[in-house]
């Protein structure tokens, strides 16, 4: 199968720097901030890649570069469209971007902030179809109903507003909206971070089902290493804009190659009281910095 040979997404030397803040409040004036620094990785079709790291590591910036929320400063992001044509997400024109967007969709962290409170669920989930002029009238409505059903929501609920739903249900609405375009790549940015653990477990399970049903590929941005261990095939560990380690999930957890990965893992509180938790990560990170330089 061709799918296995060619990656769905191939990122090479991607960089994103932000100009210095004009007021120079936090950073000294004059130096730009390198949020993503020479990042390269590939994403095979059907794979789930976890992108982990602390806040400020550049995870979200990287994800946003891939969705072209803003253009990267340098590098390539070659994305294979369903027809086999390959486009560089880092460089394509605005018009071409619109035709690519249906294939790359995103689910955001905060289901309270990402759904417009003044739109009904029908409008929210059907909006991508409206934007791309794909289906109208009853056809659109049918597709909305179908998408809601797929994520485990009652289609009859589609004339309600987001406030009528719980956090987990809202996240399902966000997933339904992303899925309605039948994307091949779904970028999940901390998609379960704001949910209660039992709800989080349900949403993760849903994502696993949908992945098989729609042959999706996931880029899962998170700081939760437990979630990563549950659902990712491979993990990329980011620190200060760079990928410090990228390996299959089992290998990352059993035999992390890099000191930073080891420190990060030691900070995870395991529910097994016999697995010790490292309370001294601060000192260890400081030592690591002293060795590597900032």
């Amino acid at each position, binding site marked *: 199968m061709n799918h296995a040979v060619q990656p769905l997404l191939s990122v090479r030397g991607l960089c994103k720097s932000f100009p210095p803040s004009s007021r120079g409040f936090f950073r000294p004036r004059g130096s730009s901030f390198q949020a993503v620094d020479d990042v390269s990785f590939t994403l095979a079709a059907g794979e789930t890649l976890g992108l982990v790291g602390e*806040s400020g590591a550049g995870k979200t910036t990287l994800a946003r570069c891939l969705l072209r929320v803003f253009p990267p400063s340098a590098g390539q992001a070659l994305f294979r469209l369903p027809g086999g044509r390959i486009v560089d997400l880092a460089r394509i024109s605005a018009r071409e971007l619109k035709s690519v967007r249906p294939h790359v969709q995103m689910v955001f962290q905060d289901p309270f902030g990402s759904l417009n409170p003044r739109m009904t669920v029908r409008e929210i989930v059907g909006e991508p179809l409206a934007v791309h002029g794909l289906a109208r009238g009853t056809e659109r409505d049918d597709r909305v109903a179908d998408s809601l059903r797929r994520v485990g929501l009652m289609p009859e609920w589609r004339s309600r507003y987001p406030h009528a739903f719980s956090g987990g249900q809202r996240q399902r609405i966000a997933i339904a909206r992303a899925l309605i375009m039948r994307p091949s790549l779904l970028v999940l940015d901390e998609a379960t971070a704001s949910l209660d*653990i039992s709800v989080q477990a349900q949403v993760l399970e849903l994502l696993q089902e949908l992945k098989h049903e729609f042959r999706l590929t996931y880029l899962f941005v998170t700081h939760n290493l437990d979630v990563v261990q549950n659902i990712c095939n491979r993990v990329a560990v980011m620190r200060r804009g760079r990928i410090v380690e990228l390996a299959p999930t089992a290998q990352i957890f059993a035999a992390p190659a890099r000191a930073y990965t080891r420190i990060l893992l030691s900070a995870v509180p395991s*529910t097994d009281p016999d697995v010790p938790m490292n309370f001294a990560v601060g000192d260890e990170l400081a030592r690591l910095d002293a060795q590597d330089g900032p």
Partner: protein
Amino acid sequence: MKPEAPLLEVDGLRVVIGAPGGAAEALRDVSFCIARGETLALVGESGSGKTMTAHAIMRLLPPPARITDGRIVLHSRAEGEIDLTALRDKAPVLRRVRGGLVSMIFQEPMTALSPVHTVGNQVMEAIRVHRDLDRADARRRTLAMLEKVGIPDSARRFDCYPHELSGGLRQRAIIAMALVCRPELLIADEPTAALDLTIQAQILGLIRAFQREIGCSVLLITHDFGIVAHVADRVAVLHLGEVVESGKTREILCRPRHPYTRALLSAQPGRRTRTG
């Protein structure tokens, strides 16, 4: 020798919200106690009543929520036995309890600090309210405390406003504020929920170190059994306003009896231990 009374006894606590007739029960017959120097974790999902319990102890329940039944008794070393449920809202002893004998760390490090006062002044206020110290002494103690909670360059940070500090440093400042008067009980309401893993480990380590140093008890509110496993001596599991199970941490984690506890534990992603 007679065993020492627990520091805090909560007995049959009932909290209702709303007017009689249309009232909803937020807490139903909640009972637990915390021994001196002990850490009790109160675990449950959102809406289970964890924060409500903490606020009831501090007598901070927002109306129309009110305590209708039960007792909350603090056996303070400094002040003797205080029945918190019996106090009037404006009782002078309540001022000594809040921030003095019992202090609280809130979840949101941004909203727990006032944005228009410097970090140093906010920590110093806690000392000035509860201890009879002049400004210079209070300032010296504040600086020492900021240093102790791991805020580097404390003399400069004293004059910073909260928005100038990172989330981790803000939470450290809040810990400084909560512990500077050496409380007998510290209530920590999801103290690390908004923080990175690495910062979380440091903050939990800091709370633990302080607990050892000043010998206070901790009521830790969390939904993360991983944190519970490494920080708590005992656990009480709250579900829909009721304590469904409580016991030693290891027993609850390894041999949960109540179906709800089992369900919560199995929902914990990446759980590497098996029960039974």
